[in-house]
């Protein structure tokens, strides 16, 4: 392990803002993408069900 403490780790040799700004935005966008994909999938399934119940009430 190359870090003396957690604060040393977060400080990132003075580049904390840049390094964590990069990692954070990447993590955020990928999590949003996954959540959005899940929501879209549920909506698609709900659409099929809604059309089914319209046709065979």
């Amino acid at each position, binding site marked *: 392990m190359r870090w003396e403490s957690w604060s040393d780790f977060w400080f990132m*040799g003075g580049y904390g803002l840049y390094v964590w700004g990069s990692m954070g935005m990447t993590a955020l966008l990928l999590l949003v993408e996954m959540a959005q994909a899940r929501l879209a999938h549920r909506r698609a399934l709900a659409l099929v069900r809604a059309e089914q119940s319209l046709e065979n009430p």
Partner: protein
Amino acid sequence: MTMRWFYYAAPQTFYGLAGRLWPWLAALALALTLAGLWVGFALAPADAQQGEGYRIIFVHVPVSWMSMVIYLAMAFWSVLGLTFNTRLSGMMTRALAPTGAIFAFLSLWTGALWGKPMWGAWWVWDARLTSELILFFLYLGYIALTSAIDDVRRADRAGALIAIVGAINVPIIYFSVKWWNTLHQGASVSLTRSPSMAQLMLWGMLLMALAMWVYTLAIVCYRVRTLIIERERHTDWVQALPEVAGAKA
């Protein structure tokens, strides 16, 4: 063999295949990400010139590579779609686009955060940066165009043209650091010479690149299933899917 490819290119077959694949791919992507972050942040040494700031490379290079790879994949599926008129091609192209757009944006974002401390500027109109910005706009253009056309087959064909014509930009991005004098550094890893990086740095970067690659496969497998359901929802096989019928009972 040819028959087999077309067999898997049928949306019904591919729906099942992608459904079995994506959980494994997602788990593998997570494992690779954790391994890559461990090597990149716990094992790799500080850089002689850039100190700890260089660690942005562990996300910047993978997302930049994938932003280009995904565009080429979209062009590939578009060629197949226009040539064989297979239904799956348009859906694959559309499933790839949002992930490509996100990676292109992240390439610009992480590049800005790297450029500021090292070059003193968030942005310069350098050939590498400008061509990557154009790639981001091409993704947005593809998404906007395909969602603006109601007829899905027409939308797919129009989108396929953007994907194919825009693919010319990818080699321009890749070779921009060779063809022009750019502020952006040249390739750290190339096929023709040994990498100009310390071993652990290289391993961290390659693990993260592999992680992003597998993540892309996972999310595309997942997203294409949504598109298949939406487009094939009037077919008997979609109507009979357990995930559709299950909730009704």
